[in-house]
């Protein structure tokens, strides 16, 4: 039960966002939802269509994996592990974020060639969100993004 208490503490800790001179206090789940909607709209513009998830069927391609396990694993691997390990490797935050975003984009090539550019932009936004707010916000943003594409 200890881990649940810690999780609740992490989820109920307000993040400070400064936008146009105003400071907002916002829960990480809400900030993630906002970022997810923004990135979904960017993806729709980039693909010039309402994007719909190409995944359907079994365990590794089903809706549960698209919405829950996929985002969590991808964020842990590409943001939490890669950015943390690449910052001392490159001695630069920006290059580490760009490299992890590039790998994230390449990893999404099976969904279509344009997903490379889409994943690059998504990865850069999520990388800065991870550096600013921690791992929870990118996970919720990714879940929102995939949920919208699953519904759409």
């Amino acid at each position, binding site marked *: 039960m200890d881990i649940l208490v810690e999780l609740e503490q992490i989820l109920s800790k307000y993040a400070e966002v400064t936008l146009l001179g105003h400071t907002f206090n916002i829960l990480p789940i809400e900030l993630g939802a906002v970022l997810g909607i923004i990135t979904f709209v960017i993806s729709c513009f980039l693909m010039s269509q309402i994007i719909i998830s190409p995944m359907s069927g*079994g*365990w*590794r*391609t089903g809706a549960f994996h698209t919405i829950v*396990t*996929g985002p969590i*694993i991808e964020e*842990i*691997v*590409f943001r*939490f*592990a*890669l950015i943390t*390990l690449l910052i*001392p*490797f490159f001695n630069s935050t920006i290059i580490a974020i760009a490299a*992890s975003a590039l*790998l*994230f984009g*390449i*990893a*999404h*090539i*099976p969904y279509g060639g344009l997903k490379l550019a889409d994943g690059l932009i998504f990865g850069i936004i999520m990388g800065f969100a991870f550096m600013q707010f921690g791992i929870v916000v990118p996970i919720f943003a990714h879940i929102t993004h995939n949920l919208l594409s699953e519904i759409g």
Partner: protein
Amino acid sequence: MINPIDIIATLEPWWMVPIALALLSLGIAIPIRAIMYQGNFIILRKRTWFVVIGPIVEEIFFRLFLLMFLIGTFGLIPGLLGSAILYMIYMGLVYGPPFTADGLVMGVLFSLAFFELGLPIVIMAHIIYSAVSSVW
């Protein structure tokens, strides 16, 4: 050139080392594998072999026996490359052609980690790698 294993080896506590090694290899191997997917997803059926027994057997044979023999025979760099190439062929034959990407990344990174960190850490990293990879 900084060795990424040096960065990983400084992590505290000790069990972060295999987790970080596995996640770093995944982050490099998954994009390369994605290029070789060609739109199709692979679903492994032999999960017990893939996650538990496979890592132990592979690490003992490819790292402890083959890599040591090749390095002793041909020198450091040719031995490392030969071990990585043989491991790529093995992965392609046993798990399917896209997994040659995993073979390349693991053949290089895990061999370097085997020199610096030892066999148990590499086996743990391989088990974590396979477990995450089977959920992916």
